[in-house]
């Protein structure tokens, strides 16, 4: 008892996290999402240890081996192999690593760029504000996948370009959100007080106002993770994202198109992995929103 108290004492505000957690844990879906996320992160980190084979190694005498529990299955390849004899399970595990990297880098790049643009628009006002927000409106006009496709067709297909395209497509969300919350914070007295105390615009933007706009942005990042993974997989599926033999889930589905009617496992598993991953981030994001912003709670 006393040990626990002394351990908790040095923390600045121990009750805050606990309050958040209590509210978050009420939502069973969100906890499930968090659990799946933890499993995925573990898989991604330990991919080299957990995967039985290299994701691109081709076993010449094991083309389209069915999963373990089906007739003709091989315990070497628990989820079967694809058309050139690559182990499905190993490719899926490495795919988890790739998906998390895609989601993480797209969401953080979009967050940083979008927040900077949004705060700049809010603080500069006038013509800068109008210009930035008009550009965002124009980006929002196009169906997101179409815009991403157009961008990739300009830059050329490939994982990196696909990720850039998804950043551009998701940018308006972050920009609008950060601008709106910055504007409402700027009307508060503490910002005026800081300004009177002589704080420069950069300090006001990033040190004074930004930390108070974080809650909705954190939620947006979590949901943005899901969008990024889904969009990058869609681009991969259309042949515009990661190129074979990269074990990206969407690209794997595109590769399966010619023979999936004979071998259901090459189709079912990669898509199911996308679904589960996106679902986990969406559940987690919804839970975060309910816990961080009680006003929106249904």
């Amino acid at each position, binding site marked *: 008892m006393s040990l626990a108290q002394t351990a908790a004492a040095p923390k600045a505000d121990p009750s805050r996290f606990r309050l958040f957690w209590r509210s978050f844990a009420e939502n069973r879906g969100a906890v499930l999402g968090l659990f799946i996320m933890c499993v995925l992160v573990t898989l991604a980190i330990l991919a080299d240890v957990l995967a039985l084979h290299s994701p691109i190694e081709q076993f010449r005498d094991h083309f389209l081996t069915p999963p373990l529990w089906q007739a003709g299955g091989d315990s070497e390849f628990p989820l079967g192999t694809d058309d050139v004899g690559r182990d499905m399970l190993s490719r899926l595990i490495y795919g988890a690593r790739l998906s998390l990297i895609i989601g993480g880098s797209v969401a953080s790049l979009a967050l940083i760029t979008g927040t900077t643009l949004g705060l700049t628009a809010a603080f500069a006002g006038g013509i800068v504000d109008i210009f930035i927000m008009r550009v965002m409106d124009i980006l*929002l*006009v196009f169906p997101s996948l179409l815009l991403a496709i157009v961008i990739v067709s300009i830059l050329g297909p490939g994982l990196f370009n696909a990720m850039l395209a998804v950043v551009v497509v998701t940018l308006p969300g972050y920009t609008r959100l950060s601008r709106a919350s910055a504007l409402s914070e700027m009307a508060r007295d503490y910002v005026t007080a800081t300004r009177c105390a002589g704080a420069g615009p950069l300090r006001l933007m990033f040190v004074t106002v930004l930390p108070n706009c974080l809650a909705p942005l954190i939620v947006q990042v979590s949901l943005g993770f899901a969008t990024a993974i889904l969009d990058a997989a869609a681009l991969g*599926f259309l042949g515009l994202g990661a190129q074979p033999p990269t074990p990206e889930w969407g690209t794997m589905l595109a590769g399966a198109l010619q023979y999936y009617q004979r071998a259901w496992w090459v189709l079912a598993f990669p*898509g199911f992995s996308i679904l589960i991953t996106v679902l986990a981030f969406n559940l987690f994001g919804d839970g975060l929103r309910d816990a961080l912003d009680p006003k929106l709670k249904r």
Partner: protein
Amino acid sequence: MLRFLLGRVTLIIPTFVGVTFLSFILLHLIPGDPIEVRAGERGIDPVRLEELRHDYGLDQPLWKQFLDYEVQIAHGNLGVSMVTRETVWNEFSTLFPATIELTISAILFALIIGIPLGVIAAVRRGSPFDYGLMGMSVTGASMPIFWWGLMMILVFSVALGWTPVSGRISDAYFIEPWSGFMLVDCWYSDPGACRSAFSHLILPTIVLGTNPLALIARMTRSSMLEVLNEDYIRTARAKGLVASRVVIVHALRNALIPVVTVIGLSVGGLLSGAILTETIFSWPGVGHWLIESIQRRDYPVLQGGTLVIGVLVILVNLSVDLTYGYLNPRIRR
């Protein structure tokens, strides 16, 4: 109202110019010359290259090209396909009804199933049905529809043989494209054609409708929950009205306003989904056409098609905005 209308219309002009600018620079951001890129590894005779560059106006200064482009668009000229030599507008207008048919049937599917489910979930808040539906709704919203479509084909077309795999109608029928909507045009043909057209439409409709269905069920539920707490609902109940009448007539009508707005504004999302759905089911619509134009490096088609779709979304958003302003005087300011 007139002032509100004029305000909204002037507001979209800069967006409109921006959209044309974006589709204009598309052709110029491609590394290298679009004509050389299209010629690919075969190369192209330098004299012919200059000729073609002149034909497409690529030898002019950039600002002049942009002005020419704006003038050209104002005349309704979207350019000519480099592959078929057909005007982009002609190609678009022949294929667009197929996309509209698919999109409308997907929305109807989502509405007809989503609204009742959302209402029942709201009325039985906290019941297993409610939890189950909300779980399904998040799953539907997270669904990678390109995979979902292929799984449906695998189950319903390949394993069970219930529905065809691709296209709009069986090859056995030739339907004169009168309206472009297969379900309308087949009406004048024999009943077999109608059955065929309908069975081709089912799977793509379900696939494209999955995301909107999830969204609509969820929106209806939360909007109903809000409305059911209002005073006038309590009044209606206190008057002794039948529960179903209170829910359907008093509550649902008001709960649907935000739902309808969201549907109107999600046209962009539907078109994104249509690109994937049409690719999977070889549905001869605009999305399929755009993806093909990328594979064939037919840049004028990509440029013109993107522009038309952008303008279309602007117009739909504007009309949603105006309708909402008409229905809800408070936002007219």
